[in-house]
């Protein structure tokens, strides 16, 4: 009984011991915060990755793809139909995106990953739709350009984002205005021959756009993208609308004020850049761009076509936002020659498979793997695809945890030192207790219990501190930002509007238990020393 009373009194009368556990408190608090933030990041990233990538994907090793996706789907359905919710075929192909900024400036060319998606497939990826910028498109997607009404405020930002004023004009409004401007500029260019070379090129480009319903094998000049070499006037190449929706119209002039090319959804990072915290756009929905990509034949040749941007894709994973471009699957297959002329059966390069909830990813993957020769196909889960990234996050978390736990271990040595001091200071009291009949165990109990109590206080305070910090992490970051005049967490850099934090109770429990364990362990040696003190020597101790 006396042990509890005594160590309670020691706790209250010796503030130096409390000082020794401040580092435990800070260590525990930091570990909780870091783990919460890392878990938040990991969860956010996983969610995004998983939304972007389907559960399992069957891919061809070749850009040529494989014939007849329906047959493949049927095969998979038979093998693992119970696990599969739905399957969607797609074509992935590397491509070059070219566009002219502002209608008059330089041509900008960027490498992209072009994805043909089946916009008529019923459930066409709800995950894909949710990242689009037009509210209507998020409900019911189509590759048609909308009149307007694109989000000016990022719908994912929860009123923390800065507005994107340029998006106000996006859509047909923008397209008509640009067309008028071009027309006016073209007329002006004709009057002043000096300016004609650039503008003429653009004119030609427009003219060429108009005739590209069949995949054209471009001549060398086109491949170089240096249309300047072409004569500006070649009206003989009669224009046909490239717009799949307007198709069927026979030879007639394409009017960019009322017609669109094939629709295209572009990663927002390809069309914009960040400047002082706001997004500035090089392109808007309504603008036209050119895509150049290889055909499916051997050897592949480059084909190109003009597309009209109908929306932006913003998953907040910059890797995807700055590389993905989506076009209608059928159109891409046509352009790449992926449709057998006799049968009309198409080729695709991948089949995205969504599983029913709760299915074991790897199990299904292995089942499907057995169906196809691995020389030609690969079957992988989204985790396989982003394994390196996820592993990196886990690795980082693990390393941080090791480092932070070392801090607590250092605190343990502080406790050890201070406990030895206290034992020395209490030598005579220990002698007194022994003269009163206290056993070694009881004396040891005093200091062990004392250590445990200190650990409890320290890690308890750390837990409260850490949880409070995590709960208010964004408010704290804001306040710090205001104080220092520079944002602590800059959404420009991270593409998150808030610091994501996820408190995982098992982790918190482990941290607190670990700190408690260290405090208790640190008190074992001093406590044993106290227990082994010789009573007479302790009594005589001055």
């Amino acid at each position, binding site marked *: *009984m*006396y042990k*509890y*009373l*005594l160590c309670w*009194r*020691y706790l209250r*009368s010796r503030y130096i011991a409390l000082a020794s556990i401040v580092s435990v408190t800070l260590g525990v608090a930091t570990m909780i915060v870091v783990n919460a933030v890392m878990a938040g990041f990991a969860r956010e990233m996983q969610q995004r990755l998983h939304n972007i990538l389907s559960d399992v994907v069957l891919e061809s090793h070749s850009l040529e793809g494989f014939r007849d996706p329906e047959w493949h789907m049927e095969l998979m359905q038979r093998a693992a139909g119970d696990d599969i919710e739905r399957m969607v075929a797609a074509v992935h192909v590397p491509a070059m995106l070219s566009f002219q900024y502002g209608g008059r400036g330089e041509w900008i060319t960027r490498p992209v990953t072009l994805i043909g998606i089946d916009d008529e497939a019923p459930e066409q990826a709800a995950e894909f739709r949710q990242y689009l910028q037009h509210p209507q498109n998020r409900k019911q997607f189509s590759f048609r350009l909308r009149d307007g009404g694109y989000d000016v405020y990022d719908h994912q930002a929860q009123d923390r984002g800065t507005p994107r004023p340029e998006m106000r004009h996006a859509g047909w409004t923008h397209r008509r205005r640009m067309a008028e401007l071009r027309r006016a500029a073209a007329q002006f260019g004709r009057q002043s021959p000096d300016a004609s070379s650039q503008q003429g090129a653009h004119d030609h480009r427009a003219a060429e756009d108009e005739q590209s319903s069949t995949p054209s094998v471009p001549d060398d000049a086109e491949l170089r993208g240096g249309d300047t070499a072409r004569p500006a006037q070649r009206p003989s190449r009669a224009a046909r609308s490239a717009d799949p929706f307007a198709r069927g119209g026979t030879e007639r002039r394409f009017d960019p004020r009322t017609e669109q090319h094939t629709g295209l959804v572009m990663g927002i990072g390809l069309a914009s850049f960040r400047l002082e915290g706001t997004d500035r756009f090089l392109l808007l929905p309504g603008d036209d761009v050119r895509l150049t990509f290889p055909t499916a034949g051997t050897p592949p040749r480059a084909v190109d076509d003009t597309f009209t941007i109908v929306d932006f894709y913003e998953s907040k994973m910059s890797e995807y936002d700055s590389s993905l471009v989506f076009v209608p699957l059928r159109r891409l297959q046509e352009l790449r020659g992926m449709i057998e002329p006799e049968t009309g059966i198409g080729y695709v390069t991948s089949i995205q498979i969504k599983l029913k909830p709760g299915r074991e990813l790897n199990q299904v993957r292995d089942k499907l793997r057995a169906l196809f020769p691995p020389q030609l196909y690969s079957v992988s889960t989204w985790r396989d695809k982003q394994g390196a990234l996820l592993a990196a996050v886990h690795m980082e978390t693990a390393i941080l945890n090791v480092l932070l736990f070392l801090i607590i271990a250092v605190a343990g040595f502080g406790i050890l030192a201070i406990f030895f001091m206290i034992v020395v200071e209490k030598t*005579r*009291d220990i*002698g*007194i*207790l*022994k*003269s*009163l*009949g*206290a*056993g*070694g165990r*009881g004396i040891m109990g005093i200091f062990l219990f004392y250590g445990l109590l200190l650990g409890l206080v320290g890690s308890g305070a750390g837990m409260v501190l850490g949880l409070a910090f995590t709960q208010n992490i964004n408010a704290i970051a804001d306040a710090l930002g205001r104080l220092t005049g520079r944002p602590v967490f800059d959404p420009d850099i991270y593409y998150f509007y808030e610091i994501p934090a996820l408190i995982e109770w098992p982790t918190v429990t482990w941290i607190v238990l670990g700190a408690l364990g260290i405090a208790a362990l640190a008190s074992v040696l001093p406590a044993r020393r106290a227990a082994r003190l*010789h*009573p*007479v020597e302790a*009594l*005589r101790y001055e």
Partner: protein
Amino acid sequence: MSEAVRSTRSAAASSHVEAAASYRQTGRTASGRRIQLEARGLKKSYFKAGHEIPVLRGVNLTVQQGEFLAVIGQSGSGKSTLLHLLATLDGADAGEVWLDGMRIDNLPRRRRDALRNRKLGMIFQFYHLLPELTALENVLAPLMIAHGLWSWLRHRRSHVQNARRLLEQVGLGQRWQHLPRELSGGEMQRTAIARALAPGPAVLLADEPTGNLDQHTGAEIMQLLRSLNRQHGLTIVMVTHDLANAQQAHRVVRLVEGRIESA
């Protein structure tokens, strides 16, 4: 006034006390009574830097029940060493210690701890109170040591009552909430005496109880010890270097050159 002491005592011990008290009232001397504490041929040496320093060279001592024995000796003559051996706080090189007809110096450590807790009360020159505990808690300390948490909580009220009564008996009825540093030397020694009495011991071992006190206060403490001996038949072994104090005891022996001589 005797309730506090008696009530904390085992039935066996209290019967001895009564016997001793009645015995004294008949006016007979202490000799011929039952032997309570006995040292037989105790030897103890310290070793310092390879040299043997013999302190006790064969101490024989018998203390009878209800006796107040004073051991006088110069400073450094080994008085404290002798008391520590009697209390089994230290082991002798040779010799035996007997308490109530039982050899106690060779008992296992836990038995000795329990014995020290229940049967042997100790007081010291420097009081040796626990500085973090109040006077009352200091008095309760041996009881807390004797009891586990649950049995302590169950008997707490009666323990506290007894401790309060003991404090009253040593003249500190109002000071029970004070910490040792808020008490004078005499008051601390009274608290220490109350603590030693709390479990109802058979023998009180006092190591120069007045050594650190002025003459007047020391006399008061001696008065208290004498009255405890007289009224409750408490067996007391007191070591001191002060002949005047020693002469208040029933019997005085002298510790010279590691041996006992009768004075």
